[in-house]
């Protein structure tokens, strides 16, 4: 019935996968988007460089929460190297719906937690030329 709020997005929002807290995470990070109040925290347990368990918690809009649910699905049993290779476009592709510029930060919040918080990647240069 709607381009953005497809049923599978709403399913992930209503019944998110991997939601909760890990007691002793090997890595943990939390980010918020102060503009809209979306919050995501994420904990992962590692064996070697492979994610064996991941949990996220947070609150916010359907897009941010569904994105976290879908991304954490993908993180299970992935190696850190594989996670580091996930791009912004991969997230949009994963969501499978068209995200307007105003909602991109919502869609990418969980990925930011993974990228900057869990993997410690540097801030991306956002000054696109055109």
């Amino acid at each position, binding site marked *: 019935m709607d381009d953005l709020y497809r049923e599978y997005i709403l399913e992930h929002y209503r019944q998110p996968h991997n939601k909760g807290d890990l007691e002793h995470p090997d890595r943990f990070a939390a980010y918020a988007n102060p503009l809209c109040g979306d919050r995501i925290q994420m904990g992962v347990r590692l064996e070697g460089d492979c994610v064996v368990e991941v949990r996220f918690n947070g609150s916010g809009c359907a*897009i941010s929460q569904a994105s976290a649910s879908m991304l954490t699905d993908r993180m299970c049993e992935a190696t850190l190297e594989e996670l580091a290779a996930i791009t912004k476009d991969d997230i949009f592709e994963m969501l499978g719906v068209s995200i307007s510029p105003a909602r991109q930060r919502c869609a990418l919040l969980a990925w930011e937690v993974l990228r900057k918080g869990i993997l410690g990647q540097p801030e991306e240069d956002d000054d696109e030329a055109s």
Partner: protein
Amino acid sequence: MLDQTNRARSIEALAPRADFPILARPIHDRPLIYLDSTATSQKPATVLDAMDSYYRQTNANVHRGAYTLSEEASEQYEQARRHIARFIHAHSWREIIFTRNTTEGINLLAWTWGLSQLKARDTILLTEMEHHSNLVPWQILAQRTGAQLAFVPVREDGRLDLDAYRQLLETHMPKLVAFSLMSNVLGTIPPARLMVELAHAAGATVFCDGAQSVAHLPTDVRDLDCDALAFSGHKMLGPTGIGVLYGKRALLEALPPFMGGGDMIGEVQLHTFTPNALPWKFEAGTPAIAEVIGLAAALSYLEHLEMARVAAHETALVDYMLARLSAIPGLRIIGPTDAVDRGAVVSFTLAELHPHDLATLLDRDGIAIRAGHHCAQPLMERFAVPATARASAYVYTNAAEIDALGVAIERARRLFL
């Protein structure tokens, strides 16, 4: 109750909707229902025509041009200033300073009055419901001067705690009291006249933020007796890029200039200058001439409607909005739940549903509402919400649009919850 509802449903727009060209634009193949006038208002054709006609017929820089176009442009520019003075009942057109917007007016005061008058440990008394524009400039000023900020609390019902206000005046003896005449989030209209009187009795200078109120309520600065007032053209049917700072003449006379440049000077030598007389002392550089002319056209339009009728229309509408929205299960209104001393802006949350999702979904129905913190993050914290959805009405809003809003929210609720 049913009677009341039927009566409310008959609320027609106060202004002819055909006067506003944008309202004829479909959004996602639906008629536009514009419920974000608190952010900015739509513009009647008379405002657009006035600006268009200025550029087509009159365009020239103002002041000191000894030719027909410049004389006409200067005349229209200065007539607009007199018009604004009448609109807010100022004593003199010299008390009307053109700015870009409310924010610039407040910054002008902070940098001129604030830096010259405040010293360490002086208090600036604000309220918890201020827009960031009536908060951050004072924070910057406090950092610069060592002055401190204090805040009148907002009660759970969205009204200011006036007992606390009296106490704060007594204990802090603030140099400045600055507050909004209508909250852009809660819709709260504080008892401004009383607050000004109490502040003056405590020895404070009083600034009023009229960004919302001047568009929606009759304004009489002589009756209100505030020392300064700022407002924006774009919220009152006028264009963006033009705002007004009103100040009592004695206050403005005593202030140093703000920005330096052309027009704000009397005489200039290589090493010194003398400032121009009021109000030009505060108007450096070529002003927003077309916007000033557009704003004057907006005032004419509002005067034709009559501000008292504008206010009454919005009271009726907000009464209906409050009743219609509070009937939706899970919907929580942030702000006063009665229509008394309240503008037609209603902020709300809907159970766990994030306001951005609601706003995006409503947009599909052609309904424009705002979602977020509305430039009032401390107020969001006060009510322990990350963000709210906000619907606001103006002269072109009717009850049928409020009904459509209610139906669309109910549909969103079924989809998400």
